[in-house]
């Protein structure tokens, strides 16, 4: 089925990382596979023509099936006078039966208001043996499934609107400066905004363990040079203006030339690097000195480690994490792994969950800067997006939740209370059906029957 084939192909995209550097792909997959994957757009498969085509197929499928069935359901739901088929109720296997002293007409008088309070619509019919009270409720819930399908189409439509009219771009703004254009991704085009974003200041703070606590940019929106709106943005709290959303995305320090004050230039520490190795098995810590390019043996037979490079601005999942060493760890009998050691986050390597955690013992380089001290000037990296499809998608979200609830937990319920005239006593038969959750309906019929029996003298 289509749903499953979309699910299956989506898996491919989770295994092969998307939108990476072509050179990395080439190295990982070799010549032939690289060309094959490239032709099939596997490296950006969720935006490839064939994946989009499957989504269109899915939409068509939902539309056609829904419309096909809707006409039949529509007739049932909007029938002026719901009709009841007595023989259908008589044929039901589950019946609740009791008897009472009063004649059918008397019983009808006490039953009808009770039932109509519970069900809304009731109808009384004479039968050859007495009379019959029909009742029903929630007929409209038969439409629930169509609202779910409608919402899926809304989601896909919203996605389409977003991909045609929306865009996503990035801009770096140094503290104290303003920009009026951004670079959109992935096309790389420059796009004017029609207003200016000014970065008043940028601050980054850290927890005691070195993990980042907050990235905060104070921004001002300028229209023709006049400030019109001011807001501090942090991750999870973007600035929204004229349909644009401005997110905190990354940050960094301005190159030394941009700062007029003289300060010790940050340079590659040429000398010794002190590393701490903590064995996860024994919990013991070993301090070893080395230099770039010189492999060291880690105690406890944990393998070899070599620092291969120093980076002034290392990146991790798109975030600038500042100065870091890159190294290669070769465990005994295992494959070499790349290890990143940011100077600012000593516990960073724990994330790798390896047998040994490596950290750099504090160097005499620049310290981390909570609240920029004199001399250091930051820039803030902002992501700017505009997506007019979001409103449609959010509407779809609300409709899908309501629709699922109606479809799963509400049903069109019909009951029939037949009262048969006897010589001295009347016999009451309660039956009911629902278009879903038949077992739950059986319990409801039982309950209704018990309640009616309570209303009946001599039952």
């Amino acid at each position, binding site marked *: 089925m289509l749903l499953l084939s979309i699910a299956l192909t989506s898996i491919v995209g989770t295994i092969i990382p998307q939108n990476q550097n072509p050179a990395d792909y080439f190295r990982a997959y070799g010549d032939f596979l690289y060309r094959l994957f490239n032709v099939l757009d596997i490296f950006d498969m969720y935006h490839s023509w064939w994946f989009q085509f499957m989504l269109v197929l899915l939409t068509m499928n939902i539309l056609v099936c829904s419309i096909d069935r809707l006409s039949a359901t529509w007739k049932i739901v909007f029938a002026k006078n719901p009709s009841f088929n007595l023989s259908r109720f008589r044929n039901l296997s589950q019946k609740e039966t009791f008897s009472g002293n009063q004649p059918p007409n008397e019983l009808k008088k006490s039953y009808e208001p009770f039932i109509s309070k519970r069900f809304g619509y009731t109808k009384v019919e004479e039968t050859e043996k007495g009379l019959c009270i029909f009742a029903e409720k929630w007929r409209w819930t038969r439409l629930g499934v169509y609202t779910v399908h409608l919402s899926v189409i809304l989601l896909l439509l919203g996605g389409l609107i977003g991909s045609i009219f929306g865009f996503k771009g990035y801009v770096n703004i140094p503290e104290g400066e303003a920009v009026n254009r951004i670079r959109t991704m992935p096309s790389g085009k420059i796009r004017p905004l029609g207003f200016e974003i000014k970065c008043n200041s940028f601050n980054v703070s850290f927890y005691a363990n070195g993990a980042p606590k907050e990235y905060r940019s104070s921004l001002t929106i300028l229209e023709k040079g006049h400030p019109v709106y001011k807001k501090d943005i942090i991750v999870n709290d973007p600035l929204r203006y004229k349909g644009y959303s401005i997110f905190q995305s990354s940050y960094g320090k301005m190159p030394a030339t941009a700062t007029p004050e003289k300060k010790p230039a940050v340079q590659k520490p040429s000398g010794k690097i002190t590393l701490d190795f903590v064995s996860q098995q024994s919990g013991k810590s070993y301090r070893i000195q080395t230099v770039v390019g010189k492999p060291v043996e880690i105690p406890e037979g944990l393998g070899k480690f070599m620092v291969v490079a120093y980076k002034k601005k290392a990146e991790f999942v798109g975030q600038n994490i500042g100065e870091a060493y890159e190294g290669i760890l070769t465990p005994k009998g295992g494959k070499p792994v790349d290890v990143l050691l940011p100077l600012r986050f000593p516990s960073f390597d724990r994330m790798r969950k390896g047998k040994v955690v490596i950290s750099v013992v504090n160097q005499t380089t620049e310290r981390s800067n909570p609240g920029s001290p004199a001399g250091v000037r930051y820039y803030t990296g902002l992501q700017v997006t505009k997506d007019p499809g979001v409103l449609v998608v*959010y509407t779809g979200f609300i409709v899908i939740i309501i629709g*699922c609830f109606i479809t799963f937990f509400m049903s069109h319920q019909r009951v029939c209370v037949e009262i048969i005239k006897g010589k001295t006593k009347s016999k009451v038969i309660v039956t009911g059906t629902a278009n879903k959750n038949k077992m739950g309906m059986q319990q409801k019929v039982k309950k209704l029957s018990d309640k009616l029996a309570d209303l009946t003298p001599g039952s």
Partner: protein
Amino acid sequence: MTSSNLLSITTFIYGAAAVFYLAHWIFKKELLGRLGTWTALIGAAGNIGGLIMRWVESYQMGIGHAPLSNMYESLVFFAGTLVIIYLIIERKTRNSIIGAFATPIAFLAMAYASMSPNISDRIEPLIPALKSNWLIAHVITCFLGYSAFAIAFGISIMYLAKQRDVQGTSNLLSRFPKAQVLDELNHQMIMFGFLFLSIGIISGAVWANSAWGSYWSWDPKETWSLITWFIYATVLHARMMRGWYGKRIAYLSIFGFMAVLFTYFGVNLLPGLHSYGSF
């Protein structure tokens, strides 16, 4: 007593509940079943208490946040919701055999959380990306869904076992609820789980739109949750439109739970935005 101690004790209480339920099933003593129920109730209380204590402790440490921020906390929460949902089913169906298939899952989740060397039970401060009120809504709804699917998985296994013994010769299987009841329960749990998985994905999407700037970015976790959603959507369609029931639904339900497990654990092996090593 710290929350960690209380939660470790809870692990053993769940273990005891699982043993009682299994013994109740095998030895047919009503008393054992009732013991199981009470033990599970105490366990659930300890579980909730532990989470609340952990919440309070995080505030005492000055990094206050809801205890739903990493693998350890999510596993503990998962075990709690699973047991609570199970206890509600037990009350409704008046059958405590299902407990022999539900409480061991909770026990395993708790045991894995406290004993696995890869899972730290320390209270860590929240990184900026997780600081949002959506965290609570997203995690709670996702895990309600996951727990419902886990119970559907247990029920499916019971159904398949029951199916094999049509004549009712096996003593052990005769005490299972009727095959029809199991089938219906399986379906109910899948519907419940599907609704909450939907809300979970949606709350995640709304959150992503305010944190990452886009409601959907085909990150592996997102994609896998969508794959899971598709699988259960297929189950629901097969049942409602094609009239599938019984065995085939049970197999699909088991298959769906495998996808849930991969979405939960396996995705951490893949690169992506959700890789805070959390969940």
